[in-house]
């Protein structure tokens, strides 16, 4: 081995790498961003879980219970007037758990000293996210138990509080449905983008795209000609994935299958448009693939696919909302696990439509751009 030759090869490689701004950015931003995301942003801890509270008692003791539950920042309590409103919030995914305090909570708590049974509070939680649900239940139980002790010490004649828990949706706290429903989002985001990312740039390199632009074909026709065939293929892929998830993993959608297929097909178009945008704005196929890979890192970290968004700092939670995948994965899980319908998913559907509009417009513009 010649050290001189090796040095020459090394010099060229370093020069070539450092002179490419995109590569340099990737080399610096990706490791730092990933480190910060995994270390700071991503956590499976239970923090600021939205907790629906129906305080039918309205006594100082029941208010104290609610205050104690929210004191440590694990739960953010939201008061609801009725049980029906709580059920709607759980289906829509607005809250992760609910606490129902009965009307005679304080009276029965005081009666414990007379040998009567402890008052029961009901805890209902969304079992879709199995790990989180398990953690939430544990925290609620311990906090309520601690509250019972505190009340006993503070108030003469006070007593224990019994907790009755029930998991809404996925009562066995099985983690598979959660991951299966999320995987639709990951696959449809990553694969569709990757496949389309190379399409235009390859045609541009081959010269066929320029030829196409000179024909009477309009930009809209070229655009639809690109995404519709792939859209159909990926829509079939969704159906195939559903069948395999059902027959092999035993996970079937609890909600409407046509609605899920419709939303998924629509989301495929959003992802395809993003891929086309990457493709149309890249000089080489390699650059388009790099962009897709770069995009897939936050897709995994920040879309809620692997890590709960609610545990992230507020500013990051806002950032997650700009990923179409975040909304699709939320919808996918809601349909798959909570049997949610269009009405309860309106906010996420609205965001998907907005993203679709923006991305389809940008992709179309990038195709027709006359610099």
């Amino acid at each position: 081995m010649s050290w001189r030759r090796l040095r020459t090869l090394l010099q060229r490689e370093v020069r070539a790498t450092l002179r490419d701004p995109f590569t340099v950015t990737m080399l610096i931003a990706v490791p730092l961003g990933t480190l910060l995301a995994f270390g700071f942003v991503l956590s499976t801890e239970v923090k600021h879980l939205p907790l629906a509270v129906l305080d039918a008692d309205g006594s100082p003791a029941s208010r104290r219970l609610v205050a104690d539950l929210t004191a440590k920042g694990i739960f953010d309590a939201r008061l609801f007037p009725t049980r029906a409103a709580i059920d709607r919030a759980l289906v829509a995914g607005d809250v992760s758990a609910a606490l129902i305090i009965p009307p005679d909570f304080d009276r029965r708590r005081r009666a414990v000293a007379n040998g009567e049974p402890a008052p029961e509070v009901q805890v209902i939680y969304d079992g879709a996210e199995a790990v989180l649900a398990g953690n939430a239940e544990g925290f609620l139980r311990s906090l309520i138990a601690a509250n019972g002790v505190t009340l006993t010490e503070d108030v003469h004649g006070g007593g224990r509080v019994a907790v009755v828990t029930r998991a809404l949706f996925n009562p066995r706290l099985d983690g598979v449905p959660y991951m299966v429903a999320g995987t639709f989002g990951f696959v449809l985001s990553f694969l569709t983008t990757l496949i389309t990312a190379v399409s235009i740039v390859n045609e541009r390199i081959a010269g066929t795209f320029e030829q196409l632009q000179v024909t009477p074909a309009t930009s809209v026709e070229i655009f639809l000609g690109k995404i519709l065939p792939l859209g159909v293929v990926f829509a079939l892929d969704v159906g195939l994935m559903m069948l395999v998830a059902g027959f092999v993993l035993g996970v079937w959608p609890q909600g409407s299958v046509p609605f899920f297929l419709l939303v998924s097909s629509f989301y495929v178009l959003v992802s395809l448009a993003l891929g086309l945008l990457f493709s149309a704005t890249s000089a080489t196929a390699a650059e388009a693939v790099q962009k897709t890979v770069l995009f897939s890192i936050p897709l995994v970290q920040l879309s809620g696919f692997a890590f709960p968004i609610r545990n992230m700092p507020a500013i990051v939670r806002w950032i997650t909302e700009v990923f179409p995948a975040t909304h699709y994965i939320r919808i996918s899980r809601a349909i798959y696990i909570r049997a949610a319908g269009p009405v309860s998913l309106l906010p996420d559907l609205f965001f998907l439509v907005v993203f679709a509009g923006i991305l389809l417009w940008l992709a179309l513009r990038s195709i027709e751009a006359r610099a």
Partner: protein
Amino acid sequence: MSAPIIQTRELTRRFGDFTAVDRLTIAVEPGSIFAFLGANGSGKSTTIRMLIGLLRPTAGEIQVDGIDVIRHPRRVRDRIGYMGQKVSLYQGLSLRENVEFYAGLYGLAGDALERRWHELRERFALGDVEREKVEDLPAGIRQRAGLALSTLHRPRVLFLDEPTAGVDVRSRALFWERIQEEAENGVTVFVTTHFLEEVDFCDWVSFIDAGRLIANSPPEELRRQHSAGYRIAIEAPAGVREAVVRRLGEAGIVTAPRDGRLEARVPALDARVLDALGRLAREHADATVHVEQPAMTDVFRDVLAANGAAS
């Protein structure tokens, strides 16, 4: 003289501080072959991309077949054919499938397509290869197929951007025969090339350097202006030399003895010269006439020098 089918006025394209095309004004006669020459990076492809509506000019005007291409780039597309530097055939498809694809984009189908493709297949000698995958075709055939496809919809103007780049000499000659046929059929051909000898296939030559037009005339006119002219060498027996000198002298061609032959220089092979040489050949069958055309390379070297060009 008919109205130009392609016309630009003060056409300019800048990329940041760099001016790729600088106030280009040209006019192309219908049915002519217009050569647009220049070195690599001189602005040829930028110009052609503006002419076909793929690139918006920074300033200036473009009319193609009476259509303002800047304002209505789409309207011109039915009327033009284009063949880029890369032959734009889809790999993975056979030539026939490519034909059907492009025909579909121009609304050509059924019997009309069959008739048109049959005609082109014969003219471009593509019958044996139409079922072949494009990537399996030799470069020369791919080039011919590309030209055939760009004329499939019978365009009025054909834009060819360095169509013979990377093609062997024989294929280039065949290619130019087809281009000339198109022109004979009334199609205007706007062709960029950096093979200077191909200029002689063309009716008009524009030459740009660093985005500026530095020559704009028929090839013969360029030779007349920028070369020492055609060299005519006559080998004749000593007994007839005097008669040869006299005969050519009557036509204004001044000869001088050189290396045992008679030599003359004429600025162009115009009718007067050709007529004189014809009579000479008839009257003195034992005389041999050699005519040497000024090389276009030398002509353009002179053009560049005369314009203080950047290349």
